[in-house]
């Protein structure tokens, strides 16, 4: 938390908006905080692109830390890597899409789309703001891929290229296809309605026979794209179900469509009657609408990330004391690699350097780095903080302790399809009932009048076509998805709602999920701190970005910081400062020279020394997340609760007191053990919900019926899961679970409603009374009323559960 001084606005960097501390650089009568920022400005000024700074104030990113080596993109010259990354390539131009996390404002869009003004070898570029992606087209004869990336990196927009980018993913055009089908259905339906209009109002006679015939034939022509194109997904799905000797909701729909179509053809061509083509069009249009409504997913979030999305694409290998950048897939056991500050450990390896500080926050959720010494084994997935280190690779990247998790069979097949959707459960009964009624009606009429018998048979199939029935599920689930989204709970797809409703067991990860690093408990032991010492401390910790410094900073509260000489952070050790010729140190045991102090075994310790004399130490333990104990108490009434932790068991008692005594605690759990724990619950027939945050929970998230990943920033890192929950909505978990059950109830009630329509329709149909007009009214009416009902019901439930706030600002 930086104090706000109004007079400081003038000394803000023109490029990035950070405070220019001591040595601000004056250039072009503008201030810059570092050479990097000035350089970006220069490049832009030369190319007449300073509009960048007019669109938003200080849009750039600080370039202070951007002093890394130029050769880090060397792997992009490798033709194999290049071929995998490019979207498109012909003899002249190449297209590539980069993910650039920095994209955050209008200026970013503007600059990235004006790259062609900086380098004429770039043809053009297009930004997708929400996905933070930019597609760049360039002439590969004039500029190489590496130079493009270097250009972006000079401007501060360094693309993130991860191992998963190498796996060639087919662009999903599913959504486009359904939208096109909806367009076709809408077009045909609309025109058919117009041509059927005279029929509805019995004006056909007025127009004469010629028109009537024309309109009917036009309707037949317009129905062809609907039957043979727009409805194709339903045939496929129904066929697949029948082949597996199952009946899903699409089977009665297809029966209905076929009956509609054939009977209408018969009516129009053989009898010269108007037919039901317009209702058929309406049916498909509404069905596709429901499908698209349900499909709305959070396309900007990624739910399928495995470790490859975190791992770099290339590493620096040392061969005969010479650095070379190779792609990660070529890394072999025994190689010596160099890992610099903020870089990821690519594989399990031994430390060759004297010491390292590894931040495992992706993996475990614990953000305080772990110190390692020479010869120790370092697991893949950690991030080095501090000076560059040397490592010998012990296992290949895909076989490491953590990444081996993904070789588990749980990732091969999905085990989440055990639950049939509610609609499939009833569609079997429904289909057989309808067929029985149709046959019964046919048998009843056949002795009296063959034409009425045929009519009764087909109209039963037509009217029973479960349009309303099949609308209720997508719209209820779609609404639930949206209401959850407003509560910052993002589901992968609609079927997760139904699974969520059946949960009876909840499993929590401890570190980073139930506990929150920001809520740490801090105790100070030692000589009392004077207010002067506190101010000095404040000045020191403010200059450090280490998580423990941040916590001590919070503990100090509003203490005024003192301006100190020579404040220096030694990464991985601590902070050193000189005040009134006295040397102050806070940091690790070795750094401060602490020796024999009584230490409890858990948590982190930060020592404070003045001139080599230890004043005392801070004991920092991660605290429970806000609302965690309430969530656990609420859930323990209705659910079986488990907590899994990779930590030692010494917190068992204190956690048990803080949470609830009904909770089953399990400590010392490795990633694979967590997975097996969930597997065990599954074999016991439990419907498990796993809530976790780190990569070490990935197996358990995968194995559970519903896996929820918790994250502080939803667009950032989260392991593969069924849902992503913003950490600030953690306390709403009980409401979310309750709401998913409500929406299941709503589906059931709306099923009842559509059955009611079916009974009315069927009672007319068996008597052979159904007319095209009646059909044209009954069809849309039933669908629309079901949609209105589900929308109202979900929203009312949402308000009751406190998930929708009426007084929005």
């Amino acid at each position, binding site marked *: 938390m930086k104090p706000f001084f109004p007079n400081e606005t003038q000394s803000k960097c023109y490029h990035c908006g950070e405070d220019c501390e001591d040595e601000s650089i004056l250039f072009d009568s503008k201030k810059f905080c570092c050479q990097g920022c000035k350089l970006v400005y220069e490049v832009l000024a030369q190319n007449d692109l300073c509009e960048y700074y007019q*669109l938003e104030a200080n849009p750039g990113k600080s370039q202070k830390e951007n002093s890394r080596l130029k050769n880090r993109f060397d792997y992009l010259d490798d033709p194999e890597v290049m071929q995998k990354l490019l979207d*498109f390539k012909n003899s002249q131009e190449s297209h590539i899409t980069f993910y650039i996390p920095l994209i955050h404002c209008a200026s970013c869009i*503007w600059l990235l789309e004006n790259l062609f003004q900086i380098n*004429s070898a770039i043809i053009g570029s297009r930004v997708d703001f929400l996905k933070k992606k930019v597609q760049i087209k360039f002439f590969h004869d004039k500029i190489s891929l590496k130079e493009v990336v270097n250009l972006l990196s000079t401007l501060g927009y360094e693309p993130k290229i991860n191992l998963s980018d190498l796996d060639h993913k087919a662009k999903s055009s599913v959504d486009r296809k359904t*939208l*096109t089908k909806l367009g076709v259905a809408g077009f045909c339906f*609309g*025109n058919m309605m117009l041509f059927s209009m005279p029929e509805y109002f019995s004006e056909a006679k007025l127009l004469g026979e010629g*028109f009537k015939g024309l309109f009917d034939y036009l309707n037949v022509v317009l129905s062809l794209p609907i039957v043979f194109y727009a409805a194709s997904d339903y045939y496929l799905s129904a066929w697949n179900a029948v082949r597996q000797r199952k009946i899903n909701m699409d089977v009665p729909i297809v029966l209905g469509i076929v009956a509609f179509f054939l009977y209408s053809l018969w009516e129009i061509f053989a009898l010269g009657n108007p037919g039901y083509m317009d209702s058929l069009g309406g049916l498909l249009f509404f069905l596709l609408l429901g499908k698209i409504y349900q499909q709305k997913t959070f396309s900007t979030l990624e739910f399928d990330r495995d470790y490859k999305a975190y791992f770099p694409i290339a590493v620096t290998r040392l061969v005969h004391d010479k650095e070379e950048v190779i792609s990660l897939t070529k890394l072999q056991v025994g190689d010596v690699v160099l890992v610099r500050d903020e870089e990821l450990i690519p594989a399990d390896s031994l430390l060759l350097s004297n010491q390292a500080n590894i931040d495992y926050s992706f993996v475990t959720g614990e953000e305080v780095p772990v110190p390692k010494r020479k010869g120790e084994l370092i697991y893949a997935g950690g991030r080095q903080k501090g000076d560059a280190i040397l490592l010998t690779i012990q296992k290949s990247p895909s076989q490491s302790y953590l990444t081996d998790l993904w070789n588990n069979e749980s990732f091969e097949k999905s085990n989440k399809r055990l639950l049939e959707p509610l609609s499939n459960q009833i569609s079997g009964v429904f289909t057989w009932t309808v067929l029985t009624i149709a046959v019964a009606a046919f048998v009843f009429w056949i002795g009296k009048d063959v034409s009425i018998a045929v009519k009764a048979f087909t109209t039963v199939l037509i009217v029973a076509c479960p349009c309303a029935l099949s609308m209720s599920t997508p719209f209820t689930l779609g609404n639930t998805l949206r209401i959850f989204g407003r509560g910052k709970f993002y589901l992968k797809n609609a079927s997760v709602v139904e699974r969520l409703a059946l949960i009876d067991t909840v499993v929590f990860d401890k570190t980073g999920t139930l506990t929150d690093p920001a809520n740490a408990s801090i105790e100070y032991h030692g000589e009392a701190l004077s207010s002067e010492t506190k101010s000095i401390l404040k000045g020191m910790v403010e200059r450090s970005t280490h998580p423990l410094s941040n916590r001590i900073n919070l503990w100090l509260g509003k203490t005024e910081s003192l301006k100190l000489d020579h404040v220096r952070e030694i990464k991985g050790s601590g902070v050193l400062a000189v005040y009134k010729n006295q040397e102050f140190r806070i940091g690790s045991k070795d750094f401060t020279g602490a020796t024999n102090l009584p230490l409890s075994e858990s948590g982190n310790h930060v020592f404070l020394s003045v001139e080599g004399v230890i004043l005392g130490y801070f004991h920092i333990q991660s605290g429970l997340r806000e609302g965690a104990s309430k969530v656990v108490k609420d859930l323990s009434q209705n659910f079986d609760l488990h907590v899994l932790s990779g930590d030692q068991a010494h917190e068992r008692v204190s956690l048990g007191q803080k949470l609830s005594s009904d909770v089953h605690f399990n400590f010392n759990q490795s990633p694979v053990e967590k997975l097996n724990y969930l597997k065990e619950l599954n074999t016991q027939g439990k419907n498990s919900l796993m809530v976790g945050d780190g990569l070490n929970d990935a197996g358990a998230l995968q194995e559970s019926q519903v896996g929820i990943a918790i994250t502080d920033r939803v667009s950032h890192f989260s392991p593969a899961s069924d849902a992503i929950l913003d950490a600030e909505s953690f306390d709403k978990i009980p409401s979310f679970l309750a709401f998913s059950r409500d929406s299941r109830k709503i589906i059931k009630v709306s099923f009842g409603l559509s059955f009611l329509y079916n009974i009315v329709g069927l009672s007319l149909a068996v008597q052979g009374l159904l007319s095209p007009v009646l059909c044209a009214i009954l069809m849309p009416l039933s669908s629309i009323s079901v949609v209105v009902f589900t929308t109202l019901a979900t929203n009312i439930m949402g308000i009751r559960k406190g998930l929708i706030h009426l007084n929005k600002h």
Partner: protein
Amino acid sequence: MEVIFILIGISLVLAVTFLFLFFRAMKDGQFDDSYTPSVRILFENQPKKSIKDQPKKSKSYE
């Protein structure tokens, strides 16, 4: 009343044209990103001092 035949013909041609335009927009990716264009439209097209070889719209995607 025979004029209705012509009118129906015209209306169908019009409707099919719109359907075709919809297909084209879909293929161009107009419905893929519904946010960025709302920002892009606000950028000013200030005249540049040197009109370099302006990028030609390349349509060849896949």
